[in-house]
């Protein structure tokens, strides 16, 4: 084991952690907002709205993320009105392309999680809420959302971990996140085993941090289930 090289590698690769986290956190937040919208459509009483939601989920879950990234990064330049619009300076940057593709992708999975969590709220509790005169936002704020949060949190935590791993694909469109830096270092030094091992360890560490964070949050939010 060449410890000096391993430490030097770790130092180089850790410089990519901020970008990796930035991609993950931004996409998680944007994706969550989109997911709420899609889940609302999926739960709508208006059938075409449900179809739109189902199509959205199918499109983004059924195609590889890499294809989605390529469509945004290489394909959007072909769309005339996008090029002409004020969005173009943003969409020209690889970073925002990656964020857009990652957000859209995670939002489809998030929508399913939110839908499942809302469906898991026992109907009798909603009925009880209605019986004592709650409706609309009050019912949602007091009964549905807190319960759905409890059911959905663990699943959303898993999705966050998957998203963190998925950010590594941004390296394919030139972003210098942990994977991108590792790739560059390998092409300079040809010491692939050590470098990719260190990169893998960094991702494993980040995964553990997220898992622990979600676990902590779950404990805080569900005092009633604590044993």
């Amino acid at each position, binding site marked *: 084991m060449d410890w000096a090289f391993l430490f030097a590698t770790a130092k180089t690769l850790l410089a990519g952690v901020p970008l990796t986290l930035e991609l993950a956190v931004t996409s998680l937040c944007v994706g969550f907002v989109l997911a709420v919208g899609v889940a609302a459509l999926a739960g709508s009483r208006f059938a075409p709205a449900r179809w739109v939601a189902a199509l959205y989920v199918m499109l983004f879950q059924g195609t*590889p*993320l890499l*294809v989605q990234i*390529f*469509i945004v990064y*290489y394909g959007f330049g072909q769309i005339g009105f996008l090029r002409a619009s004020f969005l173009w300076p943003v969409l020209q940057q690889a970073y925002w392309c990656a964020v857009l593709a990652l957000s859209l992708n995670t939002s489809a999975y998030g929508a399913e999680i939110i839908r499942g969590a809302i469906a898991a709220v026992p109907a009798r509790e909603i009925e009880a809420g209605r019986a004592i005169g709650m409706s609309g936002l009050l019912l949602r704020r007091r009964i549905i959302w807190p319960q759905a949060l409890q059911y959905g949190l663990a699943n959303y935590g898993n999705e966050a*971990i998957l998203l963190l791993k998925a950010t590594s694909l941004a390296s394919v469109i030139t972003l210098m996140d942990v994977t991108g830096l590792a790739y560059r270092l390998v092409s300079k030094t040809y010491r692939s085993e050590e470098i990719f091992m260190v990169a893998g360890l960094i991702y494993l560490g980040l*995964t553990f941090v997220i898992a622990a964070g979600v676990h902590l949050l779950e404990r805080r939010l569900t005092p009633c289930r604590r044993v």
Partner: protein
Amino acid sequence: MSAQAFTLVGFGPEGWGRLLLLAAGLTLMAALCSFVLGSLLGAVGAALKLSSSRSLRWIGTFYTTVFRGVPEILVVYLFYFGGSLALTRLMHLAGFPGFFSLPSFIIGVVAIGLVSGAYQTEAYRSACLRLERGQIEAGKACGMSTPVLLWRVIAPQTLRFALPALGNIWQSVLKETALLSIIGLVELLRQSTIASGATRQPLLFYGVAGLLYLVMGQTTALGFRRVEKRLARCWER
């Protein structure tokens, strides 16, 4: 534009249709091989994780933790660069100078298979834990030997319980094969990149690629649901 698009993805002399379909076939082959390899690894992994020996359990946990916690692309890269280097070193030891590399299909199948094996381990393990102990005891009481018990009681039920999870894992394996385009395997995504480079129509070709992935995924999902129903029939009363 649209007429031109049809010519480009069509099967004429100007069209890329035939190549794209062939590439889609390669994608399907790679996914199938990876999934089968993953099933074998998953069965071994589940056996390790359910074993009574602590060190074997530890090996199983190590396997699933590492391969589920590290991005797939890193695993693919590791095998792509590392595999060739190891082979070259091996060949040098055997007295063959020069640089040797493994075919990217094999590297890709091994890498994706290892990752999917980690997920399949969890699927088989949790399915196995849903088995009733009483059935195993009943089998033993009837005088079944371990292989017979495994074949007639444990395996069929584990498979049935694991099937929904396996269906999901198959979908992600199918999509993960897109990563093999990065290591130069001319599967569906790589072929689309080549086509869009030659015609300057990335939107069209990546869109078609996405559509083909969608079709392959949805068709196979239908198959999985059928098998699920078919297997559930034996338990209906």
